[in-house]
């Protein structure tokens, strides 16, 4: 719908039914998809505000840069692969033959789980080297932002696990198609968030 066209309509002039079954101005998408996109906007704002806070806090004199563990590059690779598998699952779910759909969809989630495991290893490694959450503001932000990203991923994995169970127990593709589609969108979003967060955290 065109926003400008919508808000310049003169509702007192036109009587009668406008539009078909679906009223003018609704999006051609399921409510779940609309809600997810709104949620992505909200999550974007959360991460943006953390990034802005990071920038501002960085300027202050007590800042000591944190050397990012190299394991993070490996984790990044896992998350990219995870996203690729989700995209693959989505493409299969739209096609005629459903070959490999379980491999793709469940594999994508497992890779995301591995990513989280990798993040946890990173955190404990940092702890072992004496970089605690309160040691330095750079550390604090590192734990906070990577942790928040992981929490978002866990939220996605909850939906993923429900659909996986349905898929494995022989559920129909119609029941999980939307879930696969939305998971894919969410995974791509979290991948972009991760890349941005990683770039910001590395840039000290």
């Amino acid at each position, binding site marked *: 719908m065109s926003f400008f066209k919508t808000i310049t309509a*003169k509702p*007192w002039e036109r009587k009668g*039914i*406008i539009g078909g*079954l679906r009223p003018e101005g609704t999006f051609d998408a399921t*409510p779940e998809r609309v809600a997810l996109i709104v949620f992505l906007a909200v999550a974007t704002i959360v991460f943006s505000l953390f990034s802005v806070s990071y920038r501002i806090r960085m300027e202050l004199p007590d800042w000591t840069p944190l050397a990012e563990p190299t394991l993070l590059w490996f984790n990044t690779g896992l998350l990219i692969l995870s996203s690729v598998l989700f995209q693959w699952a989505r493409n299969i779910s739209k096609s005629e033959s459903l070959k490999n759909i379980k491999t793709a969809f469940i594999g994508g989630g497992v890779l995301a789980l591995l990513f989280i495991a990798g993040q946890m290893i990173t955190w404990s490694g940092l702890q072992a080297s004496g970089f605690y959450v*309160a040691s330095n503001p750079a550390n*604090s932000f590192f734990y906070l932002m990577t942790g928040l990203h992981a929490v978002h991923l866990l939220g996605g994995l909850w939906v993923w696990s429900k659909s996986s169970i349905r898929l494995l127990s022989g559920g129909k593709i119609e029941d999980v198609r939307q879930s696969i589609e939305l998971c894919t969108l969410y995974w791509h979003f979290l991948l972009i968030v991760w890349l941005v967060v990683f770039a910001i955290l590395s840039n000290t």
Partner: protein
Amino acid sequence: MAYVPLADQDKEMEFHHPHSWVTKYVWSQDHKVIAIQYGGTAIAVGLVALVLSMLMRMQLGFPGSFDLIDPAAYYQAVTMHGMIMVVYLLTALFLGGFGNYLIPLMCGARDMVFPFLNMLSFWVYLLSVLILMASFFVGGGPTGAGWTLYPPQTSMAGTPGHDMGIVLMLLSLVAFVVAFTMGGLNYVTTVLQYRCRGLTMMRLPLTVWGIFVATVVGLFAFPALLVAGIMMTFDTLLGTSFFMPAVIEAGTPLDYDGGSPLLFQHLFWFFGHPEVYIVALPAFGLVSDVLSTHARKNIFGYRMMVWAIIAIGGLSFIVWAHHMFVSGMNPYFGFFFATTTLIIAVPTALKVYNWVLTLWEGDIRMNAPMYFAIGFIFTFIHGGLTGLFLGNVVIDMPLSDTYFVVAHFHMVMGVSPVLVLFAAIYHWYPLITGRMFHEGLAKAHFWFTFLGAYLVFLPMHYLGFLGVPRRYYALGTTDFIPASAQDLNQSITLAAIIVGASQILFFINIFWSLRNGKKADSNPWGSASLEWQTPDRPPVHGNWGDELPTVYRWAYDYSVPGAHQDFIPMNTPESEEPTAGEDHFDPDSDTSKADL
């Protein structure tokens, strides 16, 4: 995916159809029950805040007379009063209460898009309220840091509740943001996707527009509170230094280093200012509908009203630093934020003119909701004009820490939305309960509240000009404050106690009328909008019986020339328009009086 009309989605409705008392009234997924749960909780916690304000006023009016109120208790009362009123009462009641009740009905939907999420939203909100109330019972009591929770003093030993109180406050706020986000996603998606056939966005009543834009503003503003809350929780519990600077407490340096208290202020007000409009925009919407219905006229300048709501929502994100003029900032920033602040006056004034012009030559029915709605126009103009004073940096500087600010925001953000709430509760009471309230009692309630609010807050402007500082536990003796200021404080306290006590009229009326009120007609105010066209009164689960409504016109067809009735419901087709000569109106009902 092919569009399935809601009426045909039986399976989904069956899914959450209540089967027992518990699923019907406790774990309910019906938007109307959730709305009442939200509203009841908000009003209950609001009463706590009201009692706290009475404690504050007793101390200010008669300093030292009450042993119960020591400085710590006073600051705790100030803090909790502010936070509860702004977040847990007003936000929850407008969006969780009225948003939940009215959005599906006004959109012609059977329920919210995600009923389960909606239920979850209420229970998390209740959890946040319980966490907040728990802080009254922990060691050290609730936080007394002021509702803005500015660090570093929130976590310093001198502040009451600096240990557990502040932690519970922050956890409660985080829970509230989660609850709001769940509710907000529902409201936005329902308005966008679940409108019934023929209901374009520009046919929606302004109530829905106000709640819709306020929800969008809330979804984008509450993250700032979440971020600030999480970071401050880290500072308090884990010893990080996001906000906490190097600071010495009672001679001992604390473990903090280099944090930025100013950063917290920016984050807080990036939420805090839009919050004003999260409360104000639904109020603007609700009051527009009440005014239009009881004036028997279409709302003046509907499109401009919508544009103004959108403009105010957008502008609300670029004015936040006007709360920080005294925190110190680059003068060019001050200039920028002063300018944007004053620009907001344009769409806001436009709305006020349109409300007044809606009344102009209307066939005004002076019902109780109308009293409150017109009262709102007074208090809102009043509070809005003092906002123009404070929006200017040079005037704000001397006034910022005085009672002038207290007077300003209580007029514009306290009294005004509360008057709208009362207008709305009385206006929709017959819909929600199926009974009429007692008109005389409601009008008495109005006069006590309206005149009383002026007796409380008008003198505060004067105290502010005198230089009486806000936030102080007791004034003591100074050279510049005359003794008469204390007399004024006493009279304010007396007025405040009377206003507070007179709210009992409201509760008596609401509860008494539940059983004893006259049975309401199905459309007692003769309203054209969709929520009054439901087959049952009050609407039952599913709202619309077998078939969803179809909308043929906008929500404001009042006193249409040539029509026999002075309103045409939104779901009346053109062919069935009641025209003069056709005699199908009820002559006994005074609301269908046909003057045209």
